[in-house]
């Protein structure tokens, strides 16, 4: 998938400015940026859900925005998987039904029940397969969402802050899973994240700032990730010193 000179506006506000990007096969790409910088908009454009005001999104040699909505939706169903921060499972369906759901949208679609069974085994969801989302933990919900994202064997999975709502241990497990899935199923991941684990392990890292997409080199990325940690430690140290002073005064 290629994005060529894409610009997007919300009203008069420019969100993305002349952005170009190529998603190689079987790679994991981390996408960082401040809130409102246009990360989710870029995911929307890549999936064909949001039409950019300028530029093209190419799948193979074809601009997906020249297709009819019907064809674009079919493309999204077959070639794109989605993972969200808040999981977005259908509450009235069991874990198994949620996983199978994207493959049931067309009456005469391929039978994916074997794949669903395999993913349930692979992702360790056997014990919760018949449970409803309301009874599942964050990690379980995200694993079900991952299984749903890859049930139709997509080429690309777009993940919007997938570890943002998970505790440290669970998030680490989910990150491992992404890399494992990418390797095993030959799927590319574009992950919008603030999680350093993903950024550090990703094959490539892009940062959005002022509407522009900037490729961040690995060394710089590590530095960029360390800086906030240094700041945090300095803040804690300073606070601790202030607290000591006030205790002495009393």
């Amino acid at each position, binding site marked *: 998938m290629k994005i060529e000179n894409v610009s997007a506006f919300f009203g008069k506000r420019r969100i993305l400015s002349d952005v170009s990007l190529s998603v190689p096969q079987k790679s994991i790409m981390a996408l960082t940026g401040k809130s409102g910088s246009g990360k*989710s908009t870029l995911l929307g454009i890549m999936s064909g859900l949001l039409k950019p005001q300028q530029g093209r999104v190419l799948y193979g040699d074809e601009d997906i925005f020249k297709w009819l909505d*019907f064809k*674009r*939706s*079919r493309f999204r169903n077959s070639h794109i998987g989605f993972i969200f921060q808040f999981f*977005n499972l259908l509450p009235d369906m069991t874990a198994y039904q949620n996983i199978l*759901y*994207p493959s049931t949208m067309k009456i005469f*679609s391929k039978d994916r*029940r074997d794949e669903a069974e395999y993913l349930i085994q692979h992702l360790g969801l056997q014990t919760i397969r018949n449970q409803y989302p309301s009874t599942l933990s964050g990690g379980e919900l995200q694993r079900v969402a991952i299984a749903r994202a890859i049930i139709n064997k997509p080429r690309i999975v777009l993940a919007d802050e997938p570890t943002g709502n998970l505790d440290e241990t669970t998030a680490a497990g989910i990150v491992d899973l992404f890399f494992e899935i990418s390797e095993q199923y030959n799927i590319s991941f574009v992950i919008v994240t603030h999680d350093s684990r993903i950024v550090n392990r990703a094959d490539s890292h892009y940062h959005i700032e002022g509407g522009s997409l900037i490729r961040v080199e690995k060394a710089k990325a590590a530095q960029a990730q360390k800086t906030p940690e240094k700041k945090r430690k300095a803040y804690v140290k300073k606070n601790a010193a202030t607290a000591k002073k006030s205790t002495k005064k009393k």
Partner: protein
Amino acid sequence: MIHIAQNIYFIIKNSGRNIAKALISSFGILFLISFVVLYLSFRDSIKNYVETNLFGKLAINEIKIFPQKTSTDSFFATASSVNASISPETVKKVRKIPQLDKTYSVIRFDYDTRVRGELMGQGSRIHVPVFGMDRSFFKGKDPYWKNFTNTEPLPMIAPRFVFELLNNFLAAMGMPAMTPDKFRGFPLRLYVFTEDPDGKEIRNVTEGAAHSFTDVVNLPGVIIPTDYIVRFCKKHEKDSGTYKKGYKYVMLISTVKDVKRLPDVAAKLKSLGLAVESRDDIAEKTNRVLEIIDDSSLVIIGILLILTVISIFNSYLTIVYTRAHQFSLKRVLGVSKIRIIMGFVFEAAVIGAIYGGAGYLVGNWLLDYFISNVGKWVPALQSLTVEKAGTGVLFLALALSASISSVSALIPAIFASNINLFKAMKK
């Protein structure tokens, strides 16, 4: 194959759940369809009733001739005709018109008249206009027409609605309804009041009997043989000391030799200062009554329709916002806009059809209730026969309600298909 069944199951389950949730939204259709069912069922019955009971029946070659003073524009022209008359000279001129085959005259007593009857021990003597007609007019229209002669007891023909009133009275007394034949020979008494030279009232009593009921001519009184009236008036023409003819011509009923010449005949009669009413006029009058009924019904249907559409539109707009997450998720997972719209519209159509069916049942129930009670509420309408709405109306109700519901849901459906997906997914 199993997975196809499973896919269908998913789609049906999903739609079914949404339909159940949205069921309350289209409640207004129930009222609308009930009203439409009632309206369609009543329309034909009212048409028949208006034609037969208000305007009378005419054969294609028959015309009614009134004095010009009586406006034929009035729906109740024949009823008001009792107060106007046609002069004997004009009657003679009409009889001489060559295009007319037969002319029957309708005369009316120019004296105060009353009729007394007794039923279930309760008698009453009421003021009623008394008209005279020749028995030959009733040939082919009344099976006992030959007996309609000036004999003792005097045969009297009453308007059809009197029969309904009598049966209504019997029903109120807990008695079973009677057929018109059962009332035949029922004793009646005719009172005609003349005056002596001093202005004192003379009561002339004649024993009579019920002959039949008619809806052929819609005269607002009883009909007796013309002979009786003519002879009575001849006998009493000088009761008051001065000459009084004692009766007047109120209407003529003629048959035209050639129906195609009807406009010529009408023109000729108009030149004699008369007004004419043919079957076409009756049909026109009936249509005008129906137009009034149609127009007022359409206004009610229109108001109900607007209220229903607004309520469905609002409900579906609310549904769109509450289900924004579900719609956007479906779009993300690969459902096209058109399928979202189709799904929403299908959902609305099913809900509409459910209410259409319910409205049909409610309408029919109301119809049953009306049929069994109309006689008690308005006795004159007891002869109104209403047929229940058939399967044609059921299909119409289903199609109409499904269409209204789906059209009302179309714009909210378009909103649903255009929800800002990423905003909705972030929630």
